């Protein structure tokens, strides 16, 4: 089952640091992931099955959380996949009483979604999504200039509410002081000390989440209206102050 355990472990440790390596490892172990999903579903998984997506995500999670102390990687990954699928199954079971909009009506043989009056504009929605995608692409490109990827930001994002509030406080202070944002764009460095001093927060807390601050401060600059609208509550807090 494990021809070269050391090789897998070294690949896993590489994938921990590099998201591309992680994607490659997942691609390489897709048969394993499919077989684990099939064990759970008791049928071969289809590529459109959410369970397969969950299993792939569980495999990625195992890469991130694995350490040599946990024993064989594949056994660890197998257990993770199984647990994730069980959790997903339970979660879906809770919403079992609900009717799917894709379900067909027995009499008319029409889908339920067709019977509901549709107020929203598909064209506008598609346009909005395209605009959002454009914004995100611009942001990603700008983040690359700062040497930060989305995955890095996700890893560096504060987990605790208290820390998140500290960072948001600093972001609000920067938004209320456009010269700080200008300096940030010019120097491509987060003015941690000035933010900490101005927002009256701990410098150390901001330093720990520097990459996260890069992303949010960039969103606060001009050109990212849609994303700013998404995090309006955070920015509103700044306006109230």
């Amino acid at each position, binding site marked *: 089952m494990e021809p070269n355990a050391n090789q897998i472990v070294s690949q896993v440790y590489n994938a921990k640091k590099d998201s591309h390596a992680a994607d490659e490892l997942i691609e390489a172990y897709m048969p394993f992931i499919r077989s684990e999903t099939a064990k759970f579903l008791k049928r071969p998984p289809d590529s459109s099955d959410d369970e397969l*997506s969950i299993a792939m*995500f569980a495999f990625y999670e195992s890469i991130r*959380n694995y350490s040599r102390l946990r024993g064989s990687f594949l056994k660890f990954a197998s257990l993770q996949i199984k647990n994730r699928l069980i959790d997903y199954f339970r979660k879906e079971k809770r919403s079992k009483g609900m009717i799917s909009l894709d379900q067909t009506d027995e009499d008319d043989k029409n889908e339920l979604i067709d019977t509901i009056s549709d107020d929203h504009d598909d064209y506008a929605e598609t346009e909005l999504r395209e605009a959002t995608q454009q914004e*995100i692409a611009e942001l990603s490109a700008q983040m690359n200039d700062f040497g930060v990827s*989305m995955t890095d930001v996700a890893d560096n994002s504060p987990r605790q509410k208290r820390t*998140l509030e500290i960072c948001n406080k600093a972001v609000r202070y920067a938004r209320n002081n456009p010269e700080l944002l200008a300096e940030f764009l010019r120097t491509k460095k987060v003015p941690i000390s000035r933010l900490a001093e101005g927002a009256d927060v701990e410098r150390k807390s901001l330093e720990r989440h520097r990459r996260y601050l890069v992303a949010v401060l960039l969103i606060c600059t001009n050109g990212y209206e849609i994303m700013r609208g998404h995090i309006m509550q*955070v920015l509103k807090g700044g306006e109230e102050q």
Partner: protein
Amino acid sequence: MKYLVMECHDSYAVLMDEDSAFVTAANLHYSVGQTVTDPVIMSDTHTEKRRNAIVLTRFIAAAACLVLLVGGSYTYYSYNYKTYSTVVISSDASVRMSLNKKGKVIKLESIDESGKELLEGYDGKGKDQVTVANELLEIGKSKGMISNGDTVEFFISSESKSNYDELKSEIESEIPKLNVNVYVQDMEEYPKVTTKKTETTTPKAAEPAAPEIAPPAAPDSNKPQPPVPEKPKADKAAPTTDNNSKPQPPAKPDPPPTPNDIPRDNGQTAVVPDPPAVPDAPPVPEHKEDQLPHEKEEKPDRPDEAMPHIHNIVPDEEGDTLIHQLPVLHAPLIRSAGKDIEPLPEAPETPEPPEAPKPDEATPLIPDIP
């Protein structure tokens, strides 16, 4: 909460929530720019640690609750169900009340048959000790066990002095209202009083004082052994008279004659085999002689004077002749007894003049012995 899909990979997607927090979630066929709700978010090691911390906290909380529960229940038990003090009501009928820390009766038991009769059909559990005592005395009165003016004794034992005093003051203040004489004592006195009672069989007022005096008197009359300290002088003088009545009287007049007798003894050195015979007789007095010398050694100022009186002179079998056991006791005398006569006159020379009056003073003892 709504999440904006920021980046999509094969196995995961990066989402941004409305609080501007970035998370990694399962890519359930998402596309960038899509807004999703209820994603499957990654549980990283950090959240695992937090989960473990939560489990640990819960465990500690449960342990703390258990400790509190046990501690609380023990405290409740010790306050309500554990015997903290005991009161014995002693009259014709004797009853023992066990009280908890609050002073409530938790157990009532009879000590004698009359007590059983008194407690028949009565349950005083949970009541105040004074109430129970009052009710019991009332019942006793109604059953004819107690009448007005009788003496009722209370014996108290408690784990604390303050509680003892409290119980005592309560009893002394409340019980006399029933027209009975109340005597409150420590529980240590209880056995003595009961033994006295069994002797007298009729408990009456003013007696409780007597028992305290009585106990010491009884042992004196029954047991002659304890008075060892003072009487041994007379007592031991008497027994010695049984076996060696004669030897001692002459022992005290001896000192004056010793100088004269010594030559006699020397003349009778052939009789020397007598000393070995002497030990046969003295073994009985040995014990008493052991005591006597100690007493007499203390009295005389000069131990050298005392020694010849007691140890150096031993009665003959007939009681007439005296033989000095000088070789045994005094090193210088050993020489004299063995061969040299010189040391012997030395011994009488020095001590005798002062010794002479003493035997005279001691002579009054001689007539006492017969």
